[in-house]
């Protein structure tokens, strides 16, 4: 299966098979004006099967949330029809408004207008803690 080469844009490659649509949702790619293709279960020499997302057109999205969902993903930046930059996704320093703090004693449980914010505390083990009460984030709600 071939989806045309893009001239300008971004390709998220090596997505663990089955996670492509989740990443599409979390990044809100459905709200973009440009063309987006999600390819699921593509053949991969390295991974057997993989998902790929191709976004055509210049966009400005913070891809670091993807690092939480899938640490395999590589980002390819395409310009003039060729890959000009290829990089692994780094974890975001802060996660704002995506995860909820599960600690019943946390101030976020009584102050509804407070943003739920988690800070990266251990990169290797992907440990995020609530900036208010330091409770460890549970990723089950995004995974």
């Amino acid at each position, binding site marked *: 299966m071939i989806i045309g080469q893009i001239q300008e844009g971004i390709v998220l490659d090596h997505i663990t098979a089955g996670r492509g649509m989740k990443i599409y949702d979390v990044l809100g790619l459905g709200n973009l004006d440009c063309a987006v293709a999600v390819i699921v279960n593509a053949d991969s020499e390295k991974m057997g099967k993989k998902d790929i997302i191709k976004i055509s057109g210049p966009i400005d999205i913070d891809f670091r949330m993807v690092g939480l969902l899938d640490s395999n993903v590589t980002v390819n930046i395409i310009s003039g029809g060729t890959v000009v930059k290829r990089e692994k996704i780094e974890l975001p320093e802060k996660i704002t408004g995506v995860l909820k703090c599960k600690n019943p004693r*946390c101030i976020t449980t009584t102050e509804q207008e407070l943003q739920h914010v988690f800070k990266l505390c251990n990169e290797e083990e992907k440990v995020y803690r609530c900036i208010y009460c330091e409770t460890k984030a549970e990723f089950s709600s995004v995974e």
Partner: protein
Amino acid sequence: MRSIIDIMDLSVEEIDGLLNVAEDIIANPKKYAKVCDGKKLATLFFEPSTRTRLSFEAAMYELGGNVIGFSDANSSSSSKGESVADTARVISCYADIIAMRHPKEGAPYVASLNASIPVINAGDGGHNHPTQTLADLLTIKREKGRFDSLTVGLCGDLKFGRTVHSLISALSRYENIKFVMISPDELCIPDYVKQNVLIPNGIEYTEERSLEDAMPGLDILYMTRVQKERFFNEADYIRLKDTYILTPEKLAHAKEDLCIMHPLPRVNEISVAVDNDKRACYFKQVLNGKYMRMALILKLLEVQV
């Protein structure tokens, strides 16, 4: 403008500075009697804690300042649904510094993000209580004269005791500190304290079940309350509670210069018969808490003496 939410907000050097100021206050109280003239401390206590509140208020009065505030949530505007953020903004118009106690973890941090004056965390749920740790550190300095090369016994509820966790963090920054954790299995030190503090800092520690066995090696014995509600069943509580009560008999093989500490209030975990022992330091700790709060208020208000 600086706030203190967690004891680890202060560097070792800054803590040294606070200890020196506190000792200077003890030596020359008159020199400090008017240095906060015209300044106001707001004690915002969303849950009652009379001891901590009075310590802050006494500290401010002894610096020549004044105090405004409330002592429980019912007399504050939070009972009308005002947010912590708004309370912090409003109080910033009236006072020069805030000491906040709140049942919810992180509330003083939220206040510090919104206040235009310094905020001191005076206890947020089971989370942080940095001025208690400052009191503990001044007590250790005055009693032992050093923070390095100490064997520190921590006894009782090491699972939920926030004062114990903060003290471990604070002392882990000094050389050659050894901890002896003495608790029932049910209340032993949580894994995250080991993973985040003890192991990365290479701190030596042992876990014991018996207070008497651990006693002879200790330079400091930090007692905490074993609360009945922490146990799943009454039988376990009854079986274990006496094991962790300090009595003159259990001190028979303790060092002559042991320093016995407790964050208070005590219920029965230290027998009153121990109070007259010269090694009992827990009432000195209360006094030291006031001096460290004075030093901290001066630092945050940037008052030059």
